[in-house]
């Protein structure tokens, strides 16, 4: 092969590089270049990319809009609900009366097992049952399937976002999914773990039926309970409840208030996976049939007698956070032994960062569908707030200053009650709020659709993209449309319902910005003679480099041949 002059090649490479740089931007070669030639000619920046097609999005995926109305089922007065997908009123009736006390046709409208909530014996003769048996199961959401890439049973916290989770759910019957084709979880299996309500002084038997593949317990945080076999702590009070087993917790709470329950096995994992929920002890009152479960939290459609004395309505607000590094582990294997190792020993919560922030199991925009607090003017609304995140919750109400009436289930002395607009809740803390919609410039600034969110700014995003997180609203009912969605005066929210928004593929202001000032920039294309020349020069440079490598190879080859000859001779 003919040798090329290495020196000639090196010189050509340097010359070509200089020419390429000059063609790309002379300023890089010599910063005062334009002082001699005058300023460069105008070259238009690339155009904006075409606006992404948001497509047809479903803002409210209503299935049973008729359930929003007031109902009276089995003698139970069930309040109206403004949620896009309200609670099934038949289920509410079954929770209030007990699954043993409703007629079969009502039970058939639910997906509860016959023994989910058994209420018997009015011991104190005050018109309500006092022996209460509650059965809860543990369900996995967005778990792995050995047959398919899809997660089962599916649960979306926001468009396209399906982190793994575990929840306590009322004992149900039938399929976990909608059917064999639609693998979405049935409505009872969802985040957050269902809030439980009992009455002060009830003989409550809480039965944990461990339908999950890991051991679990129930710790009744803040609820009056005896210690032995009842505290839910594997290191101290009891053995863990293994898969397929059950554990019976017997309590007779003497103190009313907003408490919680959670699993106490590997708490840094199980609590964060979602095994945490409200446990509310209502004051003992005559004829006080309490709504044992409030599936999905949010509006309590049958508030207790005690609450109704002071309030027109009641909402449970459960805040949670998810670190996908932990929660999505259950999507990495179907083998529980591998999962146990990855979750308990390899995952390190001290290195964890939260990615998703949920109010009542959903992140914005899905909070619009079911987590709105809808109010009328001059109304007292009771809000029970639970901070299930590992950080401080700085809950902020726009347009309102609510009054803190209780901390951790203990009433605040009325003289010492504080009215404010940021409510700080440390981890696992509960706060009861009195949201008073009197337009006096203090309690309320007037009617509207006012935001309600954690003011720790990461919590208003879905993995860093806003608006998302636990943002919800306090909406005066005149600002609600017929689909139970707030009629905002602001921007079109439909882009947020497209899953591409939260993968970062849709510009944040795309619908507001008709001209495209803030749309994505398209790439630079070959337009001027300079671009053409630049590419040709770069091609030449590549050729020279290729020849250089070639000569390097022949050089090394020559040495090898010489060495071989020498050794053989």
């Amino acid at each position, binding site marked *: 092969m003919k040798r090329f002059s290495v020196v000639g090649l090196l010189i050509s490479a340097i010359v070509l590089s200089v020419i390429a740089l000059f063609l790309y931007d002379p300023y890089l070669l010599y910063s005062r270049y334009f002082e001699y030639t005058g300023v460069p000619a105008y070259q238009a920046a690339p155009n904006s990319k075409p606006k992404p097609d948001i497509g047809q999005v479903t803002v409210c995926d209503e299935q049973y809009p008729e359930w929003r109305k007031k109902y009276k089922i089995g003698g139970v007065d069930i309040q109206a609900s403004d949620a896009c997908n309200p609670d099934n009123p038949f289920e509410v009736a079954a929770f209030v009366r007990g699954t043993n006390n409703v007629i079969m046709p009502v039970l058939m409208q639910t997906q509860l097992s016959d023994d989910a909530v058994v209420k018997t014996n009015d011991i104190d003769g005050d018109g309500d049952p006092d022996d209460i048996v509650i059965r809860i199961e543990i369900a996995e959401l967005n778990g792995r399937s050995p047959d398919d890439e899809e997660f089962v049973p599916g649960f979306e916290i926001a468009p396209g976002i399906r982190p793994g989770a575990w929840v306590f759910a009322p004992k149900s019957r039938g399929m976990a999914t909608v059917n064999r084709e639609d693998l979405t979880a049935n409505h009872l299996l969802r985040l957050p773990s269902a809030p439980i309500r009992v009455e002060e002084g009830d003989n409550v038997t809480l039965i944990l039926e461990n339908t999950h593949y890991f051991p679990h317990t129930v710790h009744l945080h803040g609820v009056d309970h005896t210690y032995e076999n009842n505290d839910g702590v594997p290191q101290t009070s009891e053995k863990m409840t293994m898969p397929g*087993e059950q554990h019976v917790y017997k309590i007779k709470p003497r103190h009313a208030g907003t408490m919680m329950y959670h699993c106490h096995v590997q708490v840094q994992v199980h609590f964060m996976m979602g095994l945490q929920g409200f446990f509310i002890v209502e004051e003992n009152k005559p004829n006080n049939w309490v709504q044992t479960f409030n599936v999905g939290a949010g509006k309590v459609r049958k508030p207790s007698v005690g609450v109704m004395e002071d309030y027109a309505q009641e909402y449970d607000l459960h805040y949670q956070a998810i670190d996908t590094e932990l929660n999505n582990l259950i999507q990495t294997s179907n083998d529980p032994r591998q999962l146990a190792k990855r979750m308990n020993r390899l995952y390190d919560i001290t290195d964890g960062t939260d990615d998703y922030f949920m109010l009542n199991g959903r992140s914005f925009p899905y909070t619009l569908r079911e987590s709105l607090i809808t109010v009328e003017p001059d109304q007292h609304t009771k809000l029970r707030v639970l901070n299930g995140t590992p950080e401080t919750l700085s809950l902020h109400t726009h347009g309102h200053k609510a009054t803190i009436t209780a901390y951790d289930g203990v009433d605040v002395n009325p003289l010492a009650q504080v009215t404010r607009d940021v409510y700080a809740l440390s981890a696992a803390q509960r706060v009861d709020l009195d949201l008073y919609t009197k337009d006096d410039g203090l309690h309320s600034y007037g009617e509207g659709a006012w935001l309600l969110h954690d003011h720790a700014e990461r919590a208003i995003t879905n993995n860093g993209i806003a608006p998302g997180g636990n943002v919800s609203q306090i909406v005066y009912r005149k600002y609600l449309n017929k689909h139970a969605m707030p009629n905002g005066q602001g921007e079109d929210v439909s882009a947020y319902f497209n899953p591409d928004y939260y993968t970062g593929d849709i510009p944040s202001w795309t619908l507001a910005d008709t001209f495209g000032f803030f749309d994505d920039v398209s790439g630079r294309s070959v337009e001027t003679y300079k671009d053409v020349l630049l590419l040709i020069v770069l091609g030449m440079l590549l050729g020279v480099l290729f020849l250089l490598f070639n000569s390097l190879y022949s050089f090394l080859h020559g040495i090898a041949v010489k060495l071989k000859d020498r050794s053989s001779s």
Partner: protein
Amino acid sequence: MRLALIILVLSIFSFNSQASMRMGEWGMVMNENLDNLPQGCNKISGEESITVKAGKEYAKEFPGTIFGYSQHEFNFPKCTRVNVTFVNEDDIRHQFMIHGLPTYLHPQGMFHMELYGRGEVNGVFITPNTERTYLAHCDVAQHMEKGMKAQVLVGGGNGDLPSVPGVSGQLNRDFYELDTGIQNIILIVILLLLGFSSSVFFFIWNKK
């Protein structure tokens, strides 16, 4: 109020029209078929009885599962009446649910037995006049994934379903690390050497 009443009445009606539904605090049996002939069957050609036991006990045989059935494959001839005795040996809910059956006999194509806890129940269905493999499973969240999956082969069936314990493999496979035990390592080294030397030998032999 009136709507609630209408729904109530309607639900009673639908409840009654679904004659094959038994339900109680023990569990339920839904869409049972005792004597309706499937299309293409002239008569019931035979009777079979099986007992399906469910519980964590039956997972021990299959590493990586938590729940299981006493048997994960069932073979029946066509047009046969099958008496299923379903036994739940755990203190939680389990199901034995067969999918894909003719919808004119079983709404949603489903024959469903469920026990809310420890216990036993009987149910009957008639195999269709087809050669098909039907899915049987427990649809409590993640129970099928963790081992409660079986297949019912009618008339020999038409192949296996995936990830049936002891029968077939996973489509979405789990990844396992290498066993670093000395025996396994030696075996791996020997096999690699075998491959290496055979290819080297092949080239040398080719050159000569």
